[in-house]
């Protein structure tokens, strides 16, 4: 499989989607409303499926087309819609008050992590002149930002979204770096994702019914 060069039309489009995906992770990190988290995640997944479509077009790969459609249907529509129905609306969640740092602090930390991502992935690792050299640092940054969101947000719903953003980051890296994993593996990853979200939805609603706000800040019974 040959890689895309950075200056081809597909390369530019992939690069652009990578930047958009990073910006949407920042948007998620900078907002305080639960339905915004979900909306930004949905938008990010739509952009991701567009990127997968671009790669599919460039490589003429049927598997990538299937993947693009699955991303759109599951991550772009299915998960955001069900998360909104089952969590945000039914549990009447509005404002996330369970931040462990201020918004500006977490945004600055996010900026630092992005710089760090460029620092570690730039130099020797990636071939020059290929689109992967531009996008892999972006996807590393998305992974780190998702992790940051999981750390600074202590509400369980926000942590769930943080994990999904991490997953999107890995996926973005995968489509630019290696086009795709073998199809069976990719299908398995999707199945795991869906099963994981389902089981987490069960836990979140169970916790919310037992605790006042299902914030991990209240999860204090177990320590040491």
């Amino acid at each position, binding site marked *: 499989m040959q890689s895309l060069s950075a200056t081809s039309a597909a390369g530019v489009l992939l690069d652009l989607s990578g930047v958009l995906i990073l910006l949407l992770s920042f948007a998620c990190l900078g907002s305080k409303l639960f339905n915004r988290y979900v909306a930004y995640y949905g938008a990010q997944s739509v952009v991701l499926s567009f990127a997968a479509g671009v790669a599919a077009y460039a490589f003429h790969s049927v598997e990538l087309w299937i993947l693009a459609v699955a991303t759109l249907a599951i991550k772009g529509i299915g998960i955001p819609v069900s998360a909104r129905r089952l969590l945000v609306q039914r549990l009447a969640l509005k404002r996330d008050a369970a931040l462990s740092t201020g918004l500006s602090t977490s945004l600055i930390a996010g900026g630092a992590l992005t710089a760090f991502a460029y620092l570690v992935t730039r130099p020797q690792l990636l071939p020059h002149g290929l689109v992967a050299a531009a996008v892999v640092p972006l996807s590393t940054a998305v992974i780190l930002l998702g992790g940051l969101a999981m750390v600074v947000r202590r509400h369980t719903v926000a942590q769930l979204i943080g994990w999904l953003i991490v997953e999107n980051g890995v996926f973005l890296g995968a489509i630019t770096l290696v086009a795709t994993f073998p199809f069976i593996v990719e299908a398995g990853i999707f199945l795991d994702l869906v*099963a994981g979200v389902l089981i987490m939805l069960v836990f979140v609603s169970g916790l919310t019914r037992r605790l006042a706000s299902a914030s991990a800040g209240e999860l204090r019974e177990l320590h040491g």
Partner: protein
Amino acid sequence: MILLMILTVAGPLAGTAAAACGARARPAGWTASAGALVSLACSVWLLAAELHRAPLRGWGGYLYLDSLSCFFLLTVAAVTLLASLGSVAYLSAEQDAGRLSAFQVRLYYVFFGLFAALMLAALETGNLGLLFVLIEASTLASAALVGLEARASSLEAAWKYVIISSFGVTIALAGTLFLYYSASGLHLAADYRLAWPYLFSHAHALAPQSLRLAFLLAVVGYGTKVGLAPMHTWLPDAHAEAPSPASAMLSAALLNTGMYAIIRFLAIAHARLGNGFPRAVLLTFGFGSIVIGVLFMIRRGNFKRLFAYSSVEHMGIIAVALGFGGLLGLYGALLQTLNHAIAKAVLFLTSGDVSLRYRTREAAGVTGLLAAVPVTGGALLLGSFAVLGSPPFGVFLSELTIVRAGFAASSPVFALLLLALLAVAFVAFARTTAGMVTGRPPDESGSGSQGALALAPYRGRAVGLAAVVPLGVGLVALLVLGLWIPAGLDTVIRHCVAVIS
């Protein structure tokens, strides 16, 4: 042979099927045990056959079985059998006492079987991408077990477990991605670029920079599942809150499956990058885990947490042994894996028995076990000594091998440090368990519970036997492994070492 492999994986699903069809606690439990027995028998057969044959491959590299996978299959299948028998006793007792509903019991067996089957399947695949998929799926199945009792604290533990482990394993996926990328110079078909045997035999052609990153990410990612510090934070909570037989499965089977994934990455990294980098990574995480595990064992509290921290410590020891490397180090690591799995399964099953009888999981609330319940008390005492590495039990032998490997491999500082930490661990652990075993049983007329001790938790002889038999079998196995390593096992472990070096 492929049929045998499928049968090994499908064995534990018998319990799942029975429970899904609406069987009650006892029949579902016995079905699960029978399934686990089938699974164990098949894995022994596979192992015996494996000694005289080249590794088994099929389905485009997705199916792959060599001595190493057989060895881990045997470990996991044995633990599954012990834990299934323990489940029969624990779950029927909990249901009889009205603490679990019939629905929860069915849910338990459904996910217990799935969990075991997914781990066994993970050991039978040669494709590192599929390995990720199956390990992540086993996380999800076991999270349901952790949260089963649906108290606020168990839901909290389950949440912590599922979110931290999923995040960790996603990091391992990124590692797998970089490994895949490092193989892009190889011109293999896409399916084979993640197939372990091909990657291993072409290791010299992998791109070293991205392989280095891949190994680090894999150790951090799968290390989260193994419970290496500082990614271990989910482990004590999940082990303490899960029903005891499920804790046994987590500690003795799941952690080993994670370690198996690390060993696969280690073999490739070792072949390409040499000794230095993998050793530095593994020794760092390994010693970190031992120190953290030992420090938290000093605190006296919930005895299931104590056992969980002991698992963190032992996983650290195995990582250190892998870091030492060489024949001695790898041999010790594999032997330690088997010994620790059996010892920890025995201890967690005992802890289930204790918590059923005393209705507490706090060590301070348990005294005089030996006088009140000699069998359980004896098992706890012997199991503690076994897990702490006193002779004549198996762990002593494997830890001795690891220390010797340390002296052989690098400067003696590491080996001496390991010895010192083991000594502290002994004191910290034995302090708590000795207090539980000795002394006088709590006053039976006191506290108004009309003699909770006298009230045997198990109804029926068969259920009582199911509680005791796994403890006896496990302890005998540990004793045998301490006195004498069967020639067959020795050959198997040597084969495993040959596979990965």
